[in-house]
């Protein structure tokens, strides 16, 4: 990718060692014309290629996966798509993680459930074009029309004469042919790999303890560093590092940007020395406590500083004429991301550039910020991607990579910066805290004629998504938001905004349905019919797809039927959400054990378009539900004077195996291009549980974590 004019081009070329190498562009949603370019050496020197698959004479297909693997399964899913259209033999596919290469690839990002939607067509065209070249090469060799040839996995076949040639046999010849344009893609009905159950390509390494992760990076001469960072609203006054420097294995103690870094020869030695630092901090007037946030929420909800996000009709008139008004407030706390692998990064800064290796969801950001910091061109910074021990949005930021760069620059050595769990949990970039106020106006027939939502947040920006359902289905609607800028740092957290907003919206909608005397499922379906037949303002969701998941979830869960488990009645709560491009409906089931409600099961139906890999897709849905429920039930980070009260798993609770409900996963079968699955099943989970808890107990849970909600303290455990 050297010039703009090449943006849309798929390029084929012979690899120096013999074999087909095919690059493809990531730049536009519609992959375009295809152009052959001469080989310029081996795969490593394939300058001007955007990404590629190669086939060696033994028929081994190597597929580079450019996007960061954070547990979302992209390193398996991307190659499946390429291999599908190539008609590759999956047992002969080797997947390699590509480094950051902005010339060959684009959107090397793990975030926003966006990788598959973005790359779907490109990946298919890469595979299909290579297959077409192989077909053409075989037809030439046999001197038969291309149209008479077809493929079986790994082979081109000529059925009439019962001949076949392997992709390995044909690769070199195929690569020399002009690259065809407008190669037709398979019909979804003809998919062989896509939609199957395919195992994680990194299983062998994961299950035997191979070095795959950022924390597993070790280099000759590498030093280890841990940092003491300021709490929120504090600045560094002075450091006494005498004791720390005298400790075994300690090479240096350096300071930058209010941070103190201890550098040494092993993780344990630097950790001990860090504990021996004597640091004085200055408290500024920006430190905050959770009590301050609760006061700020009240002021923001009751004040007049909110920004209008959407306004349909006349809400004041609607509420004046209402037969019934429902009002409720919902609140969610700050949450740390808590990936099991804490933040860490390797950096080796040299005078002319830097080498970075580590777990990042945004390698390009790490590179560009490093280049800026060092005053060097971005091309002088390399970034190698490791597998990530989770990210959940935390690794969208480059702060921890830049720390490694800073320390490496200061000590003039290769350095791996390691965050302890305490550093990770207290180091910021949290899910923001929010409080919502909802008002709904009902007429005498129980129709929702007015709807108001105000989102008040700490460092969330706009805490609403103003076009979310039921917007479009209510004539008179007002959505506004107000935000407090805090010294506590926040950032994207899996399913940003929607991970708490969905709980509030879908639980409140349940309250409205109850006030209207309507079944929660039917109430939602009626609103959707209304949005379709007589839309109020813009409708920015697909009514039919949302109805589709609602109806299928109700059917699969036996909504409205009498159910029991071990003789005890099962009660259900409903939730549906459109977020991050996909539609998900969930039914939560609760059973009373003695006097306590226990979460029994969650049914989930997702419409994410074509499912690439059943195994990975089911993992994402189940993981999202466990994640969503776990944090709704137990997660919270509180503050005193800018210092988090929780700092490790003895004081911060994550969901464990004995706390998970059964989960049943379904997908809507369709041929819609895939719309993303790393996040959309998380948002609805909290309300599915909250609504079931209400049915079981008659009490509404309106704040997270549920175990500390006033209505459920001591009831949930």
């Amino acid at each position, binding site marked *: 990718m050297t010039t703009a004019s090449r943006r849309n081009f798929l390029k084929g070329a012979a690899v120096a060692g013999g074999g087909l190498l095919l690059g493809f562009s990531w730049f536009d949603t519609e992959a375009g014309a295809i152009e052959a370019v001469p080989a310029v050496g081996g795969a490593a020197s394939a300058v001007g290629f955007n990404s590629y698959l190669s086939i060696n004479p033994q028929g081994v297909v190597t597929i580079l996966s450019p996007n960061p693997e*954070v*547990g*979302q*399964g992209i390193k398996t899913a991307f190659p499946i798509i390429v291999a599908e259209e190539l008609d590759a033999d999956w047992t002969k596919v080797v997947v390699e993680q590509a480094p950051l290469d902005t010339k060959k690839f684009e959107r090397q990002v793990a975030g926003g459930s966006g990788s598959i939607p973005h790359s779907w067509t490109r990946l298919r065209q890469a595979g299909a074009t290579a297959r077409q070249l192989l077909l053409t090469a075989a037809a030439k060799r046999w001197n038969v029309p291309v149209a008479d040839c077809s493929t079986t996995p790994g082979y081109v076949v000529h059925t009439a004469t019962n001949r076949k040639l392997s992709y390995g046999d044909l690769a070199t010849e195929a690569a020399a042919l002009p690259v065809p344009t407008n190669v037709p893609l398979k019909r979804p009905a003809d998919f062989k790999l896509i939609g199957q*159950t395919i*195992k*994680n390509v*990194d*299983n*062998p390494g*994961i*299950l*035997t*303890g*191979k*070095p795959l*992760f950022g*924390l*597993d990076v*070790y280099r000759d001469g590498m030093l*280890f560093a841990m940092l003491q960072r300021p709490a929120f609203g504090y600045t560094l006054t002075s450091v006494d590092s005498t004791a720390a420097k005298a400790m*075994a*294995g300690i090479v240096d103690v350096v300071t930058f940007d209010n941070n103190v870094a201890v550098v040494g020869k*092993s*993780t*344990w030695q630097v950790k*001990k020395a860090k504990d021996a630092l004597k640091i004085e901090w200055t408290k500024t007037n920006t430190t905050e406590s959770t009590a301050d946030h609760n006061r700020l929420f009240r002021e923001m909800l009751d004040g007049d500083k909110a920004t209008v996000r959407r306004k349909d009709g006349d809400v004041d008139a609607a509420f004046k004429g209402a037969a019934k008004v429902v009002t409720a407030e919902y609140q969610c706390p700050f949450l740390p991301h*808590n*990936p*099991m*692998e*804490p933040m860490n990064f390797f950096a080796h800064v040299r005078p002319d550039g830097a080498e970075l290796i580590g777990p990042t969801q945004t390698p390009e950001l790490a590179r560009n910020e490093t280049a800026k910091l060092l005053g060097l061109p971005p091309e002088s910074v390399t970034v190698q991607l490791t597998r*990530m*021990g*989770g990210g*959940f949005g935390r690794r969208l930021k480059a702060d921890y990579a830049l720390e490694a760069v800073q320390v490496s620059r200061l000590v003039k050595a290769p350095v791996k910066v390691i965050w*302890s*769990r305490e550093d990770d949990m207290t180091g910021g970039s949290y899910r923001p805290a929010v409080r919502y106020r909802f008002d709904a106006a009902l007429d005498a027939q129980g129709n929702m004629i007015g709807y108001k939502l105000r989102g008040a947040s700490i460092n969330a920006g706009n805490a609403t998504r103003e076009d979310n359902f039921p917007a479009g289905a209510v004539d008179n609607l007002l959505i506004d938001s107000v935000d407090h800028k805090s010294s506590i740092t926040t950032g994207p957290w899996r399913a940003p905004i929607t991970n708490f907003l969905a709980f509030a919206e879908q639980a409140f909608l349940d309250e409205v349905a109850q006030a209207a005397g309507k079944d929660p499922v039917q109430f939602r379906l009626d609103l959707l019919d209304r949005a379709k037949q007589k839309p109020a303002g813009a409708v920015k969701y697909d009514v039919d797809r949302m109805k589709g998941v609602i109806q299928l979830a109700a059917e699969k869960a036996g909504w409205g039927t009498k159910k029991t488990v071990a003789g005890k009645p099962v009660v259900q709560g409903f939730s549906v959400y459109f977020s991050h491009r996909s539609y998900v409906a969930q039914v939560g089931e609760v059973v009373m054990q003695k006097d306590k409600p226990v979460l029994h099961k969650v049914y989930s139906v997702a419409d994410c378009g074509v499912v690439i890999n059943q*195994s990975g897709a089911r*993992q*994402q849905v*189940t*993981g*999202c*539900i*466990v*994640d969503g429920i*776990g944090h709704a039930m137990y997660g919270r980070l509180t503050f005193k004077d800018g210092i988090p009260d929780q700092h*490790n*798993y*003895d004081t911060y609770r*994550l*969901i*464990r*195996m*004995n*706390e*998970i409900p*059964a*989960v049943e996963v379904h997908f809507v079968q369709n041929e819609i291009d895939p719309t993303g699955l790393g996040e959309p099943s998380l948002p609805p989970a909290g309300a599915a549980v909250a609504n079931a808890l209400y049915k079981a107990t008659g009490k509404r849970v309106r704040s997270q974590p549920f175990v500390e909600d006033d209505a459920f303290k001591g009831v949930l455990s």
Partner: protein
Amino acid sequence: MAVFTLQINGRSYRTDVDPDTPLLWVLRDHLGLVGTKYGCGIAQCGACTVHFNGEATRSCALPVSAIGKAAITTIEGLSATGTHPVQKAWDSVDVAQCGYCQAGQIMTAAALLKRNPKPTTEEIDATMSGNICRCGTYHRIREAIQLAATMPATTKTKSKS
């Protein structure tokens, strides 16, 4: 600093480290055995689980000076080729998402099956609830343990522990 001779995965390792260094960091920083993971450092998450004379033990809270002649098994030594029934079951069920906690999960599960070859679901939950998986793979971990329990036990360990 002091020299320790450790019996790990059926081999002897000599290492010169601070005596209070947790086994976790000896394995990772000094012996190149990085399969054992750091998660919390306070024995709360289980990512660092190894076998200590066959018992599942948190290596992050075990000072190297307390090991003596105990036989240590790490994920690298659970089997020579990744064919321990628990590893095979983990692959078959396709348990891992990010994969970071799985070595600890596998070591905990292998120790469980060694002392209780046919655990009930409740017994699996009780043991495995000591290990956190942030991706939420718990359903498949449970399923994989149930599958491993149906496999022949003869190949369950490589080392003498």
